[in-house]
């Protein structure tokens, strides 16, 4: 019998479920077998043995935001490239030239980010 497309993906969900159940089972067994002797010092966030000072979630470098935005740009590019790559044999030279132009346009933006120091960490 022919399997419909949505059914083809069902086993992925099943495997995810199996892995999740194995994880939950291990944590549950751990709960029953473990010793429990909590005291206040144990339940403090680790900071080299001293009591933690100040806010742990302090401000961080703007670089991380820049990297995240560049990631979105390049990931969308990768998504554009996939259907092109899979059908490459059928669409031939014209599509190849088009994609090279697309990549060159993207490289312009890439080198702009490079010159403005987006990849510079010091």
């Amino acid at each position, binding site marked *: *019998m022919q*399997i419909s497309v949505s*059914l*083809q*993906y*069902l*086993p*992925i969900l*099943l*495997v*995810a479920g*199996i*892995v*999740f159940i*194995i*994880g939950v089972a291990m*944590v549950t*067994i*751990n709960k029953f077998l*473990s*010793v*429990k*002797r*909590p005291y206040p010092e144990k*339940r*403090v*966030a*680790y*900071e080299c043995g001293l009591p*933690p000072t100040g806010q*742990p*979630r302090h401000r*961080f470098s703007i*670089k*991380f935001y820049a*990297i*995240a935005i*560049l*990631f979105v740009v*390049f*990931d969308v590019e*990768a998504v554009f*490239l*996939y259907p092109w*790559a*899979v059908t*490459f*044999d059928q669409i*031939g*030279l014209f599509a*190849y030239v088009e*994609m*090279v132009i697309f*990549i060159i346009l993207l490289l312009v933006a*890439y080198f702009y980010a*490079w010159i403005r120091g*987006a*990849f510079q*960490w*010091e």
Partner: protein
Amino acid sequence: MDAKTLYDAADHFLLKYTGLSLIKGLVLVVITLLHVAYATYAERKVIGRMQQRIGPNRVGPRGLLQPIADVLKLLTKEDITPDCVDRPVFMIAPFISLVAGATSLAVIPIWQNFVVANVNCALLVILALSSLSSFGVILAGWGSNSRYSFLGGLRASAQVISYEIAMALALVGVMMLAGSLNLIDIVKAQINSPFKMFAIPQIIGFFVFMVAAIAETNRTPFDLPEAESELVAGYFVEYSAMRFALFYLAEYFGMIVMSMVAVICFLGGWYGPFPIPGIPFFWFLVKLYFLIFFYIWVRATLPRYRYDQVMGLGWKILIPLALLNIVITGLIKVLA
């Protein structure tokens, strides 16, 4: 045939299909879990030998029962949850890591007749799941509400998304040569290549993929998120007992899945120089074990990079190389 018989047939088929996939998935996950356990043993033993030590040798003959002893020890450890954590996020993070790391196994064909889910977009599923696994890291770093975890999670997320791009672009060359995203089709397309593998025509892509795979799984020389000399243990500082072990499991699952993808996309999957009668997946396992050994070998050989070097390598070298690979592959295919 009336409607009711048809309905019953479909119902019966669905039950059979679900049950069969469940059994297949269970077998695959359990076998991989055993591989994960013995990968830790192999890692300690191989690195020990490379550093002129013996490695574990007390538990069982030649230390062969060491992974089992490790699991038993972890099961009896105290599970400490610090007071300051964001509880729901803290609880869910290891499971996200583990499930996203291990579910990719479902689409990987061990040989042409054994794959749990034979889907057309298998490669896309793998890339999507490897993106999801970075959420586990980010949420663990954020939810722990500890300084080291926060910095580790921040570093890890930036590193993982950077190398994700390089990896995604490195695979485009393979898709162009195979003309498919289905992993079985990709393996079958390699039979006409030299040595029955894409590693020769896609040598740049293979290089980029391997470097990116090591960085994606946060292993030495790219293990900055957990650089113990600066960040203690990075994003899982606050985790203990089995929750800590889940992160470790996720890392090793990731390593094995990435090796499997490399074997399938670049090293010709189950094809070998000559067929071995009776064991159709023999060559798949040989290549897989070699790549896992390669990971361990790299860890024993190279020192850790600085953070600016890691980001520089990803953005300034690997991404341009991967784009160049796409252009060259296309040019060769257009001219041929």
